[in-house]
């Protein structure tokens, strides 16, 4: 083990937590985790939120977020135990021996400084290079990560470059002082799939060419398959399984790993369109800023009773705006919304109470969509009182029925949102939407903020409820895997336009238009070598054009 770079032994990390209404107590965030990393290797740390993967990832930098403390074990980097270093000693290795690439580059860059100043900062601080040398190296790295205009991009401010570019600049910032180890903490999670693939390829090339070792933290097994040599699966702060990438994805031993590997397998048979759609969007054009910024252009789609229309697209494609136009939050400039054969008023304020009841919404962020000071019973009971005038015992009875329907049980009626897990919160939001007995529920990225297994549970629940309650869904998402599991028909949107629309089988069967092809080919698959094949396919396609 001559070239062992990082050796973590029996790491134990604790934090003080403050549960509502209870005295503070100590919680174990990471429990007895050991790992070794050799020079030039990439180890993927994978797990759900709360698995402790970021906390472990930050331990070689001697850093604990939000007051967590390392209370046991050893973290040996380049032969020195990090935990015995003074504050000064730790500062000397941060940004020199270990560098960090954060999830959201947009937030991780200082908005008031030019990119170059930030990229060379640690090299100058640690005396690795003088300013001219550091800038030269940064420009070479900008080139390597295929950033446009590498000579001058450093003069820009963070808000002047795109999210995907910023993530690559952040990688350059980590590479610039030539560290031995880089911690990548979900570096592509916040990006669109078509951007993610390029950033992923750039990161992979950079790791290979510079020979730096890396800890790659993510919740997405398909992504980590592309970059990691080995994978460690974590859950609740404990190690579940460790092995080579091939072993983990092809021969997982633990049931939890097996569940993660097979997460996207939901059987859903596509239903045929009916002659009478429940809601039709006809030639709708909508804009923000007094009609100047057009975000929806001439969009026409139908949603059929008790079926699901999935609207897919990247950020800025107009998919959420479509929902706002249908609900009346953003009255369209042109076109109309037909519900059960009659035209709905374009403005929310002009719609009848019954029209409002028929269309309900579920949002991405369940925790901000609920009043934290209301109990679950109040949250679900409110639409019962508002639409049906139910009160007292009658209302409680109905709330309990709904809680059973969302597979949580009547016991939750007096709980507060803060006491629920992410998946449970989203279930309460679903129950609140169902309470109105709507014909159509608009689901806006409802599983995007959830861990894969939890998201899977929510999708299964939605499908069951569709059968029981005969409700139609307009399902907005950027995740094509989700679409395949739940949709009956699909609308693909790009920059406000509908580029492809039809039944699920039609949309997902070749020949594809260019954009749908790009979108489909960008979704990472859990196959070693997928990234190289996809990139090569793209290069061929662009050479052919």
């Amino acid at each position: 083990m001559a070239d062992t770079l990082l050796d973590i032994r029996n790491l134990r990390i604790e934090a003080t937590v403050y549960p509502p209404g209870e005295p503070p107590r100590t919680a174990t965030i990471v429990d007895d985790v050991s790992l070794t990393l050799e020079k030039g290797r990439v180890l993927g740390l994978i797990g759900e939120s709360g698995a402790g993967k970021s906390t472990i990832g930050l331990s070689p930098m001697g850093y604990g977020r939000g007051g967590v403390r390392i209370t046991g074990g050893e973290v040996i980097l380049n032969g020195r135990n990090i935990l015995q270093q003074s504050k000064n000693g730790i500062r000397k290795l941060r940004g020199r021996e270990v560098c960090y690439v954060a999830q959201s580059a947009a937030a991780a860059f200082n908005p008031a400084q030019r990119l170059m100043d930030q990229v060379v900062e640690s090299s100058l601080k640690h005396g690795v290079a003088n300013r001219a040398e550091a800038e030269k190296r940064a420009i070479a790295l900008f080139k390597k990560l295929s950033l446009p205009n590498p000579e001058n991009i450093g003069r820009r401010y963070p808000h002047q470059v795109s999210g995907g570019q910023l993530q690559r600049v952040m990688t350059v910032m980590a590479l610039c002082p030539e560290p031995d180890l880089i911690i990548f903490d979900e570096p592509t999670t916040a990006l669109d799939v078509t951007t993610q693939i390029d950033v992923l390829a750039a990161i992979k090339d950079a790791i290979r060419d510079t020979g730096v070792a890396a800890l790659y933290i993510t919740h997405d097994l398909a992504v980590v398959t592309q970059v990691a040599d080995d994978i460690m699966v974590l859950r609740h702060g404990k190690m579940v399984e460790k092995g080579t990438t091939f072993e983990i994805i092809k021969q997982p031993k633990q049931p939890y790993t097996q569940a993660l590997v097979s997460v996207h397998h939901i059987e859903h048979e596509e239903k045929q369109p009916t002659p009478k759609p429940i809601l039709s969007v006809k030639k709708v054009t909508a804009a923000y800023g007094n009609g100047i910024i057009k975000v929806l252009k001439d969009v026409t789609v139908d949603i059929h009773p008790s079926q699901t229309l999935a609207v897919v697209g990247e950020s800025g494609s107009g998919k959420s705006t479509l929902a706002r136009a249908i609900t009346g939050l953003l009255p369209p400039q042109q076109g109309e919304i037909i519900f059960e054969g009659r035209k709905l008023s374009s403005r929310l304020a002009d719609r009848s109470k019954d029209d409002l009841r028929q269309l309900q919404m579920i949002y991405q962020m369940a925790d901000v969509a609920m009043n934290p000071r209301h109990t679950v019973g109040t949250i679900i009971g409110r639409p019962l009182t508002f639409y049906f005038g139910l009160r007292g015992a009658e209302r409680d009875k109905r709330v309990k029925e709904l809680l059973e329907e969302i597979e949580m049980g009547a016991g939750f009626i007096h709980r507060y949102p803060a006491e629920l897990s992410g998946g449970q919160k989203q279930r309460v939001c679903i129950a609140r939407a169902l309470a109105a007995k709507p014909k159509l529920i608009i689901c806006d990225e409802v599983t995007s903020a959830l861990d894969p297994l939890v998201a899977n549970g929510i999708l299964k629940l939605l499908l069951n409820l569709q059968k029981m309650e005969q409700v139609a869904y307009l399902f907005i998402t950027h995740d094509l895997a989700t679409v395949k599991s739940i949709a009956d028909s699909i609308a693909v949107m790009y920059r406000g336009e509908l580029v492809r629309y039809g039944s699920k089988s039609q949309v997902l069967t070749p020949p594809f238009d260019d954009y749908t092809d790009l979108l489909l080919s960008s979704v990472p698959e859990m196959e070693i070598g997928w990234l190289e094949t996809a990139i090569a396919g793209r290069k061929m396609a662009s050479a052919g054009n």
Partner: protein
Amino acid sequence: MSPIVRLIVQRIALGVLLLFLVSILIFAGTQILPGDVAQAILGQQATPEALANLRAELGLNDPAYFRYFRWLGGVLTGDLGTSLTTGQEVTATLLPRLWNTLFLSFWAAIVAVPLAIVLGLISARYRNGWVDKLISGLALTSTSLPEFFVGYLLIYLCAVKLQWFSSISTVYDGMPFLDRMKAIALPATVLTLVVLAHMMRMTRAAILNVMQSAYIETAELKGLRPIEIIRRHAFPNAIAPVINVVMLNLAYLIVGVVVIEVIFVYPGMGQYLVDHVSKRDVPVVQAVGLIFAAVYIGLNIVADIAAIVANPRLRHPK
């Protein structure tokens, strides 16, 4: 037009409009004061004829809007009217006093602003430690004490007991600079103590707010020292709220010196105002009110513009 120029022009136009509205308020305010100017000038023994003559002479019988526009026209041409009590041109008596007030406020600001910001940065660096608590405690104590109390305390200690300074801050034309500085030392110290805490607490709060940002974590993980992080990454992003509170306090330094000028018998705007309010000298009160309003609005525009210019998104559009 670049967005930044448009925003600045907008702010200035708004400021002018606001000043115009304030001039109406000032005029209306002085009109509804109880009592009669002519009576105040001539005293209780004046004959009705004398009162009527004086009223006609002063134009007090004209309708209010007429008198307002006459006054406004004068203000726009630099003529603030004639003092009713002394018969002197208001502009000529007011300018040296305005200069005195600005001189005092300027030196108080020169000391107070950098001191407050540096103390705020130090407090943020050692947040919740004893240094932070000591700084906050002293600053809050000095602010909580009324300024007349601090003023008399300093006079008692520095002028009466130690005899370092004079208890009366007299200044006159042609006074040597150093003598003038010695004269304003005590009132400037009191002013500094009054405004220090507000600016210092705001700097601290603005920095601590920025310290929650993800880019501060980035800086920590680059191995920067806490003070470097504050100086390079936190302070440049906290500058807008700090500028705002600094300008607010500068305005207070100029507008709020009334009490201090009276305590130290300093010949500035504040004392001038107090003297003439008691004599019901309407033109002087109006003039001083308008100048105070202009200073207040002007400094707030400067704060707004500085905050706009400090925002990189506006300085460097996409």
